[in-house]
């Protein structure tokens, strides 16, 4: 089999023109998902069932179903309901981009809230007792003791989720979005050269993953500065 280098060189700039869309998907759903995760976390940490139960159900549903199915349900399924088409969400759900953001946000929010919860529960109980003994209120303990330590503990699993989210953005191409993956699929359809195109695309994703890893590595070091000798 021959490997067409010139085809790769030709198609690289085309695929890279989708980089903006890939990043928009990653950053928008990443930020919104983190916010959602935080809300879900607070709901679960309250000891009131009417907050914690809905959060648990939400997390179960979104972790328990394939993200591709979630994207299809939101993109193909929701517009069938009149109520959705007349709601204030329609301007977002009418667009494939909006649907992709909603699906990715809900999905990553469910996963990240579990990461945050694990990190919160991993904070040494003795430190919280010390805070209580000093007279700090529940909120003060959460803000000054739990949060900074939980952030540090949550970084490695969270970076894992961001990398996973980067790759999930490629699924948006299934609902007519021309991110890097969408463009690559179009080129493959025209050239019948899946190897060259998809392998170079894979390498682009790997390069981004490398930078995400590095970035989180620096962040982790910064947050761990107190344990260095």
């Amino acid at each position, binding site marked *: 089999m021959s490997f067409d280098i010139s085809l790769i060189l030709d198609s690289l700039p085309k695929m890279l023109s989708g980089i903006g869309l890939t990043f928009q998907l990653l950053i928008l759903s990443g930020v919104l998902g983190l916010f959602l995760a935080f809300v879900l976390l607070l709901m679960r940490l309250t000891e009131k069932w009417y907050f914690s139960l809905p959060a648990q159900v939400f997390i179960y549903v979104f972790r328990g179903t394939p993200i591709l199915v979630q994207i299809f349900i939101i993109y193909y399924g929701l517009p069938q309901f009149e109520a959705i088409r007349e709601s204030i969400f329609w301007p977002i759900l009418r667009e494939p981009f909006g649907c992709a953001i909603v699906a990715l946000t809900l999905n990553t929010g469910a996963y990240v809230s579990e990461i945050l919860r694990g990190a919160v529960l991993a904070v040494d109980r*003795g430190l919280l007792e*010390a805070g*209580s*003994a*000093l007279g700090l*209120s529940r909120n003060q303990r959460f803000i000054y003791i739990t949060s900074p330590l939980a952030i540090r503990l949550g970084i490695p699993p969270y970076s894992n989720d961001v990398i996973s989210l980067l790759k999930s953005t490629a699924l948006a191409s299934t609902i007519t979005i021309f991110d890097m993956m969408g463009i690559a699929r179009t080129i493959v359809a025209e050239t019948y050269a899946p190897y060259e195109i998809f392998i170079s695309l894979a390498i682009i994703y790997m390069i981004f993953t490398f930078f995400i890893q590095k970035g989180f590595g620096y962040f982790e070091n910064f947050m761990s500065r*107190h344990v260095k000798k």
Partner: protein
Amino acid sequence: MTQPLIQMQNVDKFFGSFQALKNINLEVHKGERIVVCGPSGSGKSTMIRCINRLEKHNNGKIFIAGRELTDSEKDIDAVRREVGMVFQSFNLFPHMTVLRNLMLAPQLVRKNNKSKAKEIAMKYLERVKIPDQANKYPSQLSGGQQQRVAIARALCMSPEILLFDEPTSALDPEMINEVLEVMEDLANEGMTMICVTHEMGFARSVADRVIFMDLGEIVEEASPQEFFENPKNERTKLFLSQILSH
């Protein structure tokens, strides 16, 4: 006689079906120094942890400076402001410098401004003789230094009562004395303190009363001289023979 600072009346505490405290009655007056000892699992830690509501007692009443400990958050907060605690594992906040560990509660709970909180913090760091470590993180200190910081942190709230929960048990032997010295200084200055400890030398030299606990009960309560030289209860005798024999 004046009202006791701490009053425990018929206090029971259960963990599930296990009874950790059985009908505890204790009165501690201002300026008294109490040492609590007993085998592990005897309820010593649980008893002092009930005093600042780190554990919630199931039956009986606890009064701290006349205020009853109930479910009321307001009462619990008020009691915690007046009761300091030093833990076996130090429990310094690892992400804050020594200085910030000390300033946190004076700023958040006592509402002191930053410079006042810093002044308080430095005063007590000097008192435990490590002002030069103020800007280090706890992980950079030795165990003995960390425990002295933890004592200073409790003192920054100017508590009426200090509780010590096995403060030297996690320390290497050569660091025990530096912590005991600080505790003795505090005792000599009239601080009301309850120490759960196995340091019998400390008990002999500073305690007004020694309390021996076993199986969740207060078995014997006596002056150190009486306690060590003339223990009444068989369980006390057995315990003393075990810890003093080596």
